């Protein structure tokens, strides 16, 4: 079993729809949970991060973590064509040496149609 599992999609929705993206993980040592957004032919960019179980909201985006189920989600409200991108979940744990290593999901490709 991979440490982080993410459905690669693709996911196609009409403009204005609510989008739900999900990841599961197996490593209980993960402490930070992040969502990166990657536009076509670009590098990933950090969108949001969370630390504890619960919800975190940023504009139209809500990140949710359920540590008991080892499940994280990203919700996009009122989706826009500009949200069309690949969304990668990422998780990190602090090593004994104090450094961090990210483990990424494969990414879900989202297309929002006007």
């Amino acid at each position: 079993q991979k440490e982080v599992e993410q459905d690669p999609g693709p996911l196609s929705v009409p403009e204005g729809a609510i989008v739900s993206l999900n990841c599961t993980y197996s490593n209980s040592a993960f402490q930070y949970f992040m969502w990166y957004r990657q536009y076509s032919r670009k590098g990933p960019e950090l969108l949001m991060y969370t630390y504890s179980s619960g919800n975190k909201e940023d504009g139209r985006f809500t990140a949710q973590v359920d540590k008991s189920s080892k499940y994280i989600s990203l919700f996009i409200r009122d989706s826009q064509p500009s949200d069309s991108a690949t969304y990668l979940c990422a998780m990190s744990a602090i090593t004994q040496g104090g450094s961090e290593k990210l483990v990424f999901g494969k990414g879900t490709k989202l297309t929002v149609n006007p």
Partner: protein
Amino acid sequence: DAGVIQSPRHEVTEMGQEVTLRCKPISGHDYLFWYRQTMMRGLELLIYFNNNVPIDDSGMPEDRFSAKMPNASFSTLKIQPSEPRDSAVYFCATSGPRGDGLAGGPSEQFFGPGTRLTVL
């Protein structure tokens, strides 16, 4: 700051040739990561450096891959000899000290634009 700079942006080479990918980190960032992205395997960490010292190279697939960071401003990833299965997009990412820039949170990694490598 110009962000993380990678060169070349595209590389097409023939099997058996040596390939060198280059990365210039964001000034002041002391962590540098090399990733490989493919459709099949997603984004995989190959190796990372802290203060120019390799910390973890467990993701380097084979001895054909090597990475160096001779100073704080420059890193290379070399593949010798290259094979068709090395075709992928290679990203360099850098970050500051843990928690830097994200209050109480993880270090944000800033990715370069990537090098698209095709080995024929």
